[in-house]
């Protein structure tokens, strides 16, 4: 910009600069539709390719004749899966397992969130139970089943109890990490604005912790899902077909195709929920401007 232009009246000069600044912020909007299609394809093709490669290797092993009588090929397994999907039993099992997953995970989020919130703000409490939470996190949750079965018997409560013990520590630790890593500059800004105690927590520390909290949720979900499937294998409740029960039945009947089909269902359900967390995480990063432009 030529200097003599800036020599004019101050407001005109200022407005010109403001206008220039505004131009920088405008985003190109026209090619958004095409970009979406390209992005979807970019995200999709590696996954499709990976699945194809897995199926091909599986088929090759099957064709090689290794453990020929018991090791099923992908064709037989997938048609078995298709057959099971057309009966009500598998859907019933999926419904029951999903219900337990939702209830158990929700309990874990509430309890883990509460514990995390208290521990992150109260010094002595952190000193007392901070390392205990991390210890619980590393503990294989399946080890809790004998304890829980003696305590609650063969019941849904037993399964939920172990899910909560498996997932809540990760949720709590995620929140604690988020609180610890709240940028000090933002804390100073918040305090200067007059945010104190509860309002500081609600309007600043909690939202600032959100990314770490979501990471904790994601990890907590992984532990919850593992605990749940392990629990269903160990705790079969009469009249309540679950994915674990179906898997266990297939084992009893040496139905390898059926067992493999259920494993695929468990895998897909786990992936779908993980993708939902991924979407949530990406939405936050986009809102905050943390996405790389690479």
């Amino acid at each position, binding site marked *: *910009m030529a200097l003599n232009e*800036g020599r004019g009246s*101050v*407001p005109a*000069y*200022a407005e010109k*600069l*403001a206008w220039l*600044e505004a131009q*920088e*912020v405008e*985003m190109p909007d026209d090619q958004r539709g095409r970009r979406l299609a390209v992005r979807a394809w970019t995200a999709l093709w590696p996954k499709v390719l990976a699945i194809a490669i897995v199926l091909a290797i599986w088929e090759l092993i099957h064709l090689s004749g290794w453990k020929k009588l018991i090791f099923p090929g992908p064709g037989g397994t997938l048609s078995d899966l298709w057959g099971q999907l057309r009966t009500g039993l598998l859907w019933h099992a999926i419904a029951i397992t999903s219900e337990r997953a939702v209830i158990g995970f929700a309990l874990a989020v509430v309890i883990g969130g509460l514990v995390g919130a208290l521990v992150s703000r109260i010094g002595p409490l952190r000193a007392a139970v901070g390392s205990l939470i991390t210890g619980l996190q590393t503990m294989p949750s399946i080890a809790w089943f004998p304890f829980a079965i003696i305590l609650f018997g063969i019941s849904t409560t037993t399964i939920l109890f172990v899910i909560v013990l498996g997932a809540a520590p990760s949720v709590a630790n995620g929140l604690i990490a988020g609180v610890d890593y709240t940028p000090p*500059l*933002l804390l*100073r*800004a918040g*305090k*200067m*604005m*007059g*945010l104190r105690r509860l*309002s500081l927590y609600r*309007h*600043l520390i909690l*939202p*600032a912790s*959100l990314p770490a909290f979501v990471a904790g949720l994601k990890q907590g979900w992984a532990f919850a899902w593992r605990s749940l499937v392990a629990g269903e294998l160990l705790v079969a409740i009469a009249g309540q077909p679950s994915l674990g029960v179906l898997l266990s039945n297939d084992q009893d009947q040496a139905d390898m195709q059926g067992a493999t089909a259920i494993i695929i269902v468990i895998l897909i359900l786990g992936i779908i929920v993980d993708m939902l967390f991924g979407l949530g995480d990406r939405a*936050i990063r986009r*809102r*905050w*401007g*943390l996405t790389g432009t690479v």
Partner: protein
Amino acid sequence: MARQGSSLTITGQRSAVERVTGAVGSVRLASVSKVFGRGGSAVRALDQISLEVPPGEFTCLIGASGCGKSTLLNLVAGLDQPTSGEVSVSGRVALMFQEPALFPWLTAAGNIDLALRARGLGRVERRQRTAELLDTVRLGGFGAKRPHELSGGMRQRVALARALAQDADVLLMDEPFGALDAMTRDLLHDELDRVCAGRRLTIMFVTHNVREAVRLGDRVVVLSSRPGRVIDEFAVPIEHPRRIDSAPVAELAGRITDRLREEMSHGTQ
């Protein structure tokens, strides 16, 4: 440099103060010292600083890095306590940082709204005040943008609006334009002049840019480095509107720079 500039004698009169009447905020520092750490590793950041900022004055604090400028503002803001001496502030205090320090999970309007909410304003009043403040900093159409969607200068203007939203009597500014390019900074100087003109603000503005201090301030206080001490002060009897590249501003800035150089060469002896 031009020591003989007769039009710029220090009179002790603060001609520009009269442009703000009815201001209530003021700051008084009496023999304030601040020491960080203990024993052998103790660092004396501020040494016996006495300084008075009367209501309505725009005071610029200037000094090389390590003169404890930010420490000084933290003490005035109440974010830290002095080791000795007394800091007294009348009126509400707001603080603006070199970084905008906006909350990334809120929009520009949301950031301003939160400051109003912290003061306990109701929803309807908040919405109206937020719109007004965005207009004040010429960001009327940008309320729904998130901080990362704005340019550096715009973010700092949102930060200014947020500071104004706190309805403070004393506005502390810690090198608020230090991270901006010269053109944007120039624009923001005009904005700040305009915004201050209609308000009863007392301002303490920290910078290491001598011309910026002269461009903005009614008075420039010069601090020494390690430990920070008040070594001199200059009234700025230059008419508003000022321009950073005008002759009177450059002349006074030159004299202040000379004074700073002198001090720094003392320091190395």
